[in-house]
């Protein structure tokens, strides 16, 4: 499964590089891959993996092993293999074709998203015992972050376009890890467009060291919160 994922990423990425005429439009296509496929695979694969290894986890719990170390072991095993897949499938073509700053950002964002959505996968799977329900809610969660959320934000921004929205936009983007990742790469890629009008404002914020640290910390928070929330449930759960 992870191998298939690696292969998929590798083929997509090298195919895009091979066919793309202009590197920045190639990176835009890659951006779509990272923002859609990586979260989807991570959350789905994570949930399925958790439900499938349920018996194994139960067996482990019967041994004198700390629940915490089982939980984090499972998480690191899952996220680690997915990150490996990402690095091989995406990192190698990027290094071969376009080791630019924007491409490296792409990789970093992919890495963060892998950790975040693996954590979200664990959260959904510990919350419900029913496998179908768990996978369903994981899918919904992905749909919410990848598609629905942006629609709602777009609606809000359009509706309140007469008001000063700078802070609101920052807050709204922080509420969705995919959006933060997107904005981070956007600022490296579409600089010319973003220098116009309002874009310059965000460029000023995210382009500086503080903005980078801010967005990275928000991404870290997005890993930590679901991860520890799931751990809390897991450690108290009667399996």
């Amino acid at each position, binding site marked *: 499964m992870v191998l298939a994922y690696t292969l998929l990423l590798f083929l997509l990425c090298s195919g895009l590089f091979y066919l793309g*005429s*202009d590197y*920045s*439009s190639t990176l*835009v296509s890659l*951006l*779509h891959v990272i*923002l*859609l496929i990586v979260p989807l695979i991570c959350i789905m694969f994570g949930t399925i993996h958790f439900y499938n290894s349920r018996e194994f986890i139960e067996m482990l719990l019967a041994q004198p092993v700390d629940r915490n170390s089982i939980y984090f072991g499972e998480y690191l095993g899952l996220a680690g293999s997915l990150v490996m897949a990402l690095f091989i499938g995406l990192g190698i073509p990027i290094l071969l074709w376009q080791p630019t700053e924007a491409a490296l950002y792409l990789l970093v964002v992919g890495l963060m998203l892998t950790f975040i959505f693996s954590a979200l996968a664990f959260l959904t799977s510990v919350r419900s015992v029913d496998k179908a329900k768990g996978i369903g809610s994981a899918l919904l969660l992905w749909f919410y972050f*990848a*598609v*629905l959320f*942006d*629609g709602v*934000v*777009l609606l809000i*921004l*359009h509706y309140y*376009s007469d008001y000063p*929205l*700078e802070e609101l*936009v920052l807050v709204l*983007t922080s509420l969705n890890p995919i*959006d933060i990742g*997107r*904005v981070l790469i*956007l600022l490296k890629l*579409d*600089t*010319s*467009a*973003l*220098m*116009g*009008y*309002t*874009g*310059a404002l*965000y460029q000023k914020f995210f382009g500086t060291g503080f903005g980078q640290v801010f967005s990275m910390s928000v991404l870290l928070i997005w890993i930590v919160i679901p991860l520890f929330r799931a751990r809390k449930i897991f450690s108290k759960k009667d399996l």
Partner: protein
Amino acid sequence: MEVKFGHGTKHSGNCNKFVLRRYLSIYLKGLLGAFLFSLLPVVCQAKNLSVGKGFMYRTIREALEQSDTGDSVIVNSGFYSEGALVIDKRIFLRGIGLPVLDGESKIAVITVHASGTHISGFKIQNSGFSDIREIAGIRLDEAHACVIENNYFYNNYFAVYLANSSYCRIQNNRIEGFARTETSSGNGIHLWKGEYNTILNNHISGHRDGIYFEFVKESSIIGNLSEKNLRYGLHFMFSDDDVYKYNVFRENGSGVAVMYTRNVLMENNRFEDNWGSASFGLLLKDISNSIIRNNLFSKNTTGLYIEGSNNTIVRHNEFRRNGWAVRILGDCYEDTLTENNFMANTFDVATNATRNMNYIHRNYWDQYTGYDLDKDKTGDIPFHPVSFYSKLTEESPHTLMMLHSFFVDLLNQTERVVPTITPEAFKDVAPQMKPFIYD
């Protein structure tokens, strides 16, 4: 040429007479020429007046006073700070070893009133600054057919200023300014009124406008590099029938502005890296009957901005990695946008128009997703270059931050299938499948 006499044939007499006559005429002409040539020093009597340490004249001012029309004043390397110099007769003012003319931040360094003056090889620096007068490194006042070449202008208010001068040539100058604010700085090369002037191969940076044209007709701007100027790389108004080509305009505050002008030919220029909230590669305002071709617009916030223009042809240009490749306002009509390459721009075309009164035809759009079943290299379905999202960002600019969101792409695709808010008439009915290759 060798002429042989007396070749013994029966026609030789005639022949000889003819050759002789021709020879005589050549000889006479030669004699006349030699006579005129010997007169030349008497007529012209051009002197060379050398200025510098250990030369005939210690100051340029002195040499200028002693000179007559047509003389050469040759200035050797050194530092000259002699107050405002005025040239009121035709002089060849030549610097050797880059002598420095300093204006001490107080005065206009050289002012020329005489036609045919030639100034070359100086470093002209620190002209004065004034809020009222336009003080320059070199100022030509109604002086025609002058040449200003191979000079280095450093830290002047205006570097070269032509007022009502024609047939002048300004070439191979390096013009460097240190403008900080628009109100406290002047232009690199400033032309006000005149015709048949040529601005050739200059490198201008750090002024308010790199090159400024107002009421300058039939002139050309060729091979210049204008970069890092505070406002425009080239500012161009009421200047009909001009040509500018092979120039590079880079990283200027707001790019290049061409306004209120007819019959301009702009070709083979590069408009690059003009970033900023009100920046564009090239702004056209009230332009008519002009041609823009073979230019490259790269990495500008807006590549080409067209307002109030008509009958202008935009052809064979490449738009690459701009925020908005072309922004065309609703008051433009009968402009033609054809055979251009649109590549990797965030938005191809933006407009506030609801109707299309321009021809958009046969361009290559890398965002085109159509097909070509009959293999005639032209897409079978039209391309709408104004996307839903581009329209949305016009209305509410903050939505720009949702760029490349999957949801936005979804909306764009839906809009392409069923246009609701984008102008349906704004389309390229013959989009190309492959980019054009220009030489």
